[in-house]
């Protein structure tokens, strides 16, 4: 576990989508910790629940989605049970959010400056002069000329819009910044440049970050810890380097080997056979068992627990004490065809 007290402790979080029939669990008993200043990446396929988890943490869910149970302790207070006023008080000052597409996340009829001052004045009483000073400061921080405070979102380029969103997120130098695929809307070059900037800002200001993406290779270069999600559950979580170098969960292995390395040896391209499950009717036992190359009989019946290996938490029966196949290596996937034999 983490040595110092984590700023974010999520325990057994369950998020459900109400429907006409039974509610669908998009996030199923997820527990995670985040230390101050730590960069946590959450990866997974589309529909694995990572964005839902993110918005649950930010308390931005809207009906029909709702937090069914569990706790999210931020700086010691449980955000799930917090009242609206208290919640509004810590919003933006202590944690902020960066969304995927700035074009959609910025109000098209207000100038960047107006939106910034809205955020500031919602929480502090400040004379206009100071609001303006702080706005200019934070724009310069992300490398945008403060003259653009007078611009409307549609007048800026994609990259500038994204960076203004980040500027807004940092206006109170919060302790936690939650980011939902902020680079997905950009081209590869802009992506890297933005990531470097985010990392630089993190070093300077010292905020903790949760970064959700489907692009494992991108986030692996920048995150301290990496969590792999599948079908609403965390399958593996640990220091990025360790997880990346030796993924233990069969799903993580499969995910990694789907991204061929430019520098490494040439291997046949592997995917993971099958498709992600329907969350309304998840598979019994371990959710990954229908697609797992290392499936064992009791994977179908019993849900696996978390096991620790070298600082990494893995949720897999392979690591049960006395398990016959106790070694999971990426190499096991090589040479397998689509049928899994």
């Amino acid at each position: 576990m983490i040595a110092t007290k984590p700023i974010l402790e999520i325990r057994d979080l369950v998020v459900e989508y109400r429907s006409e029939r039974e509610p669908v669990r998009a996030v199923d008993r997820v527990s995670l910790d985040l230390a101050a200043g730590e960069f946590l990446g959450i990866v997974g396929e589309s529909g694995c629940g990572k964005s839902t988890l993110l918005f649950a943490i930010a308390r931005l869910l809207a009906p029909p989605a709702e937090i069914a149970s569990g706790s999210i302790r931020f700086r010691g207070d449980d955000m799930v049970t917090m009242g609206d006023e208290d919640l509004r008080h810590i919003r933006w000052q202590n944690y902020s959010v960066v969304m995927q597409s700035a074009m959609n996340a910025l109000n098209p009829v207000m100038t960047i400056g107006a939106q910034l001052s809205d955020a500031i004045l919602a929480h502090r009483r400040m004379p206009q002069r100071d609001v303006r000073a702080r706005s200019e400061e934070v724009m310069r921080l992300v490398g945008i000329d403060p003259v653009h405070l007078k611009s409307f979102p549609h007048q800026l380029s994609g990259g500038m819009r994204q960076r203004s969103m980040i500027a807004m997120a940092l206006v109170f130098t919060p302790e936690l910044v939650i980011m939902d695929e902020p680079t997905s809307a950009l081209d590869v070059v802009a992506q890297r440049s933005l990531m470097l900037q985010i990392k630089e800002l993190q070093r300077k200001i010292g905020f903790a970050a949760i970064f959700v993406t489907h692009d494992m290779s991108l986030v692996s270069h920048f995150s301290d810890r990496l969590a792999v999600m599948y079908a609403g559950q965390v399958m593996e979580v640990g220091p990025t380097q360790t997880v990346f170098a030796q993924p233990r969960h069969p799903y993580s292995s499969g995910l990694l080997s789907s991204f061929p390395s430019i520098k490494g040896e040439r291997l046949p391209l592997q995917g993971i056979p099958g498709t992600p499950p329907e969350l309304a009717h998840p598979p019994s036992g371990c959710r990954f068992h229908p697609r797992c190359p290392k499936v064992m009989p009791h994977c179908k019946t019993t849900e696996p627990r978390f096991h620790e290996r070298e600082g990494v938490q893995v949720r897999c029966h392979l690591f049960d004490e006395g398990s016959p196949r106790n070694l999971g290596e990426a190499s096991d996937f090589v040479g397998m065809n689509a049928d899994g034999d």
Partner: protein
Amino acid sequence: MWYLVRRLEFFIVTLWAALTVNFLLPRLMPGSPAEALLVRFHGHVSPQAVKAMEVALGIHTDQSVVQQYLEYIGNTLRGELGVSVSYFPLSVATVVMQALPWTVGLVGTATVIAFVLGTLIGMLAAWRRGGLFDAILPPVFIVISAFPYFWIALFCLLIFSLTLNWFPLGFAYDLTSQINLSWDFVGQVIAHAFLPALTIVITSIGGWILTMRNTMITTLAEDYVKMARAKGLSPMRIMFMYAGRNAILPNLTGFAMSLGFVISGAILVEIVFNYPGLGFMLLQAVDNEDFALMQALFLMITLAVLVAVLFADVLTAVLDPRTREAG
């Protein structure tokens, strides 16, 4: 600024179209009832007035159609519209100008009130989704807006005027009064205008409520509203500045597009209440076959609608910075 230029182009073209309709219709219709009427005028009215009407209605002229057309447009722009049959010897222009303020006052005010109120209510209904407000409103207003304007007018007359005697039966002011600016007169005007205004508001507000509610619901799902919540802004501010400001834009356009229809309904209300505005006069003119007056009123009503549309367009340009850029 191109946006406004295009709107001006539209304004001029529509006006031209209305003029052309006025010009073409009497020539396309079989028979010429206008001729018989004009015979009555000779000797009683200035030659220019007679000539203007002949040109406008296509009677007795030796000129080619094109010449008549140009002369008609010229006459109209100069205000030479002829003399009214039903209000003889008043000139058409005089009658029209007398009726104009009543319509602008009643219909203009009522329509604006309906739009503003309707938009606000629609915004609130969408904001409080799932509540009682949202469940009752749509069906109630669908039903109300299905009633014809004039029927609601009759209904109001029945209940509030005939049965309860709260309001007068019609016209713009007491029949025995003269137009002046005294408080008493103003009071009369308001009393007489209340029921027609109420009718217009009741029948048209439903449409605004529903469309605003629908656009607001779509807007509330947008990311920037989520972002505003994330920033911890006050709910009021989010509702107005983030959701409302954006949701109202398509509504304003819709308002402009439906003004023709709304004004038509309002005219029916004028008629039921015998309110001496452009619409009421138009019906009188039609019934009395006063073609010159009819044409002029049609033109004036169209002009009024166009001005309102232009106004809505300007408002859109003010509220939406994106229109100022786009070509």
